[in-house]
């Protein structure tokens, strides 16, 4: 049961990240201020969600996807 849930979680998280980047929601972040770590806000926003998805992919691989026995 736990197994199923974590499978769904990874897919949902990645899709959530993509929604933050590729739906009109991104227009809410379409500002220069506040600058974060010296980055204009839009750039920070994009990098943040990109990093989020990238890390999810890594965790998914370590915890789950990469544990499948390889089919050859």
């Amino acid at each position, binding site marked *: 049961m736990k197994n199923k849930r974590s499978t769904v979680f990874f897919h949902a998280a990645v899709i959530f990240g*993509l929604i933050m980047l590729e739906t009109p929601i991104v227009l809410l972040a379409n500002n220069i201020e506040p*600058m974060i770590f010296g980055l204009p806000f*839009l750039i920070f926003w994009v990098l943040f969600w990109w990093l989020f998805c*990238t890390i999810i992919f890594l965790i*998914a691989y370590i915890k789950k996807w990469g544990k*499948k*026995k390889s089919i*050859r």
Partner: protein
Amino acid sequence: MSAGVFIIFLFLFIPLVVGFIAAARSNNSSSDFFIQGRNMGSVAAFFTVAATWWSSFAFLGSNASFYTEGPVYLTAFAWNVLFGYLYYIVGKRVWYLGKKFDYVTPSDFMGDFYDSEKVRIIVGAVVTIFTIPYLQIQLTGGAYLIEVTSGGVIPFWLAAFLFYAVIIVYVWVGGIRAIAWTDIIYGAILFFGLLLSGIYISNLVGGPISMFSEMQRMHPEFLTLPGPDGAAGFSSWISLCIVTALGALMGPQLWLRMYAVKDGQLFNLMPFLIALVAVTYLGSVLISWTGVLEMPGIENADQVLPIMVTEFMPLALGALILAGGAAAAMSTSNSQIHAVSTVITKDFYQRYKNPKASDKRLTKVSRYAILIFSIVAYFMALFVPGVLVAIGLVAFGGTAQLIVPTLGALFWKRSNASGAISGLIGGVGIMVILTFIPGLNSPLGLDPAMWGLALNTILFIAVSLATAPRNEKVVERFDKALEMFKNNEEETQEVNDEKAL
């Protein structure tokens, strides 16, 4: 500029050597030539996918876009995520079915699933026709970079010629293995080159952070959508992301790279790796916006990167980076030439002209297809420049249409050939109409390919439902295979869970 010429020759010479070493490992079968006997190792597979996906469009185009349009190209971070994700979801299944039913080309998969010669021919035609203009752009871009790096010593026609000659020789002798191996070199130069030169160049204005605050003071319009001209807003943002990711994923060169992989484990890691390499786009941001501050008014925006690099970086280092740009073009075009020649050989020559062709004969035919194809592209690069960028966008949009029947094949049992055919014809048709008929503007500012995808999906579903389902035997065969794939994926998880306990 002799250092530049020297680096170029080194750069052309190394792939040749690698190509011959790779050829020595080949076993002379056509399967080895086309898809490395489905035996490609994971490192080579990753680099060849990443470098193939990373074309001139990214290397020169990203800089041009940041320099003129503001931040819209940042959508690239999302398209890398999307591409990686689809490579896992779609790619792994295609790889599995390819192994099971022995597919070599995209049409093999589609033709077999939809059980229709028409689908096979249409898919073959779409991938061939829409790859040609895209290939031509790579070659023009690559030759142009060689010309600039050499300081004009090597003229455009010779640069393009050298570019082709090297590719033809190593693809001729080594097939896909030579391509994958050379792509490892190209990929490495590419990824580090762009990022490092971005950091180096932004130091002109005191590093990345002060570059951004300077931009905010002088040119705030570059930092938000829709950019300085107000032309690149949300509709460009989403069109670019979807059309690029899907168009690249469905290109024939990427299909072959799905079949060629030896170990399915690679597909599990691919999303992470592909998403990670997006970090290099930061290099483009730094280079182009430093350019906005330090070198405004460059007329041809495609020249932003070469001009900045030759102007502000030490000669040898700069030449190396530009050679990396040529690498971007080369690693994409070598794969395209090889992939299209494979499609022509397998889908058209073997299927309709000479079904009993021997293995040797097939390899030979595909080598000549490479040669002829490259000669055509060479003359097109010399004599038909200019309009290419417009055609290039159509090229991505065209291959992107294949995603609909592909997803249909993998996830929708009720899909059928009539649906796939009308979807593809409708999708490609509306895209071509919206692009080429003057005075017709694509509604909502979305790329024509987006409307193509929408119409394609609607027709695919509607016509599939309105016509008879596919032959039961075929449905069952695929059902079984995909079921097996699913079980395989889940079963092994359980085994692992038990182990963990």
